[in-house]
């Protein structure tokens, strides 16, 4: 390949150059995990067969369970219900956590006043809040939304706060030197300087939010993937549906993470992540 003159335009990033050269490696990102999954499913199947269990499902039973849920129209309904709750709780957490974190990171008195409180509330598992949430919100959708909010607001706040506190002094000095102060300083320097770390916090928080929605639905409501699992267990020991619910939770969690990771690819924040 002739070397291209990249002046003026951004050079196409030549990531993983040897992947293209070597035809075996090219499919490795697909083949390797597929092989792992196949082996996993096989062992699962054999173990169920060998144990002679008639309650725990084989992978095939689970696939049929998922199909049954699709046919009844329940799968989509439950996924939407869970995603709806996560979206609300998570969005509220971002709207509260990011500004709060920026303020705490920047204004020392605010940090001194609120940080101890945050550090005490933070280690309380959202699961521990379930009874309180039911007391305050009943079994309406607002109870799990509240739990998700609680679970995700702390990581977002803390990472935004740390991002501001760890900001390179030289950026601040340069901005002040150019006479940038007040809201302008926040908008043009502090926020963009903190953004990569804020996004990392948001990504972690989304993972936690997804964990929590399922837990909350097991107790507080009567729809969603968490509810599916508990309901399938209680109404007739349908473990094929229990595992089907678990599989869906895992898959959707993976998709959510892949989606939120896209935020890290924007040019304005790429600098904040390791160059690998």
């Amino acid at each position, binding site marked *: 390949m002739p070397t291209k003159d990249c002046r003026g335009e951004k050079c196409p990033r030549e990531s993983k150059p040897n992947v293209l050269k070597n035809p075996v490696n090219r499919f490795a990102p697909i083949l390797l995990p597929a092989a792992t999954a196949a082996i996993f499913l096989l062992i699962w199947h054999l173990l169920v067969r060998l144990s002679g269990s008639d309650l725990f499902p084989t992978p095939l039973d689970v696939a049929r369970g998922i199909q049954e849920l699709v046919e009844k129209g329940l799968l989509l309904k439950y996924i939407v219900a869970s995603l709806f709750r996560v979206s609300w709780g998570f969005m509220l957490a971002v709207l509260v956590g990011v500004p709060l974190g920026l303020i705490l990171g920047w204004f020392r008195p605010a940090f001194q006043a609120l940080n101890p409180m945050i550090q005490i509330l933070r280690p309380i598992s959202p699961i521990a809040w379930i009874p309180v949430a039911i007391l305050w919100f009943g079994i309406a959708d607002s109870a799990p939304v509240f739990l998700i909010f609680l679970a995700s607001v702390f990581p977002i706040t803390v990472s935004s706060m740390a991002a501001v506190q760890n900001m390179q002094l030289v950026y601040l*000095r340069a901005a*002040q030197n150019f*006479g940038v102060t007040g809201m302008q300083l926040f908008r043009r*320097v502090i926020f963009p300087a903190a953004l990569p770390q804020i996004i990392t916090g948001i990504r972690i928080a989304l993972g936690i939010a997804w964990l929590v929605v399922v837990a909350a639905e097991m107790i507080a409501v009567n729809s969603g993937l968490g509810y599916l699992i508990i309901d399938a267990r209680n109404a007739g020991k349908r473990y094929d549906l229990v595992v089907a619910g678990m599989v869906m939770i895992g898959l959707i969690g993976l998709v959510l993470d892949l989606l939120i990771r896209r935020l890290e690819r924007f040019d304005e924040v*790429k600098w904040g992540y390791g*160059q690998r």
Partner: protein
Amino acid sequence: MDNAKTMIEVRDCWKSFPGKKAGEQVHVLERVNLDVHAGEFVCVVGPSGCGKSTLLNIIGGFIKETRGTAKVAGSPVNGPDPRRIFVFQENGVFPWLTVEENIGFGLMSKSAAHREERVAHYIGMVGLTGFEKSYPRELSGGMRQRVEIARALAADAEVLYMDEPFGALDFLTRLKMRADLIRIWQAEKKTIVFVTHDIEEAVQLADRVVVMSKRPATVAEEVKIDLPRPRDLDSPGYLGARDRIFAIMGMDVHGGGAGDPR
């Protein structure tokens, strides 16, 4: 000789930082006196770690002296000021902005047309044409340093504080940047305080070279470079001044911890 008005006036300036152990102080600057006239080009040299950046940061308003006074344009320094732009030793280019956005950073209050024109001009001067839309992470260290220099020049400040601004540049680029800086300085009558560890560079650029001693640093000596520009690097005057500064710094070597006289 002192008919020009004084721009920077540092009097009996001391600076110490809290040391590793509680109550212990690291004395960095001791009894520093420095005057810079308006329109003067002053270079500060001294061994590494002696306090050159510290002194410049005090004049720039980023850190406060422990004792003494620092005045700029007649009033005590009280924080940074857009009329006096700093080029930082550690790169201060904003990584979330493109090259052109960085260079235009100090011009936000100006009209878009004026800003674009200035940005284009200084991008050309520092040889970054074609990289306007690149992000700093896509540039080399030397290119990033040129972005910062262009950003400082584009802001059109009356005073420039430059802390080893050409440190990461290759030899030829460095020569070109020196010539450009002298040209801008002569055309725009700026006052420049320029920290460097390169004695040759100091003698090529400055009206006056301030030589600092090792830490706790004070001004060991000031060497006036009364030579016409562009400077003849083989002239007896140039060589004499250079050797003089080498000698002043060399004497410090006996005390240990002196810098690298390159």
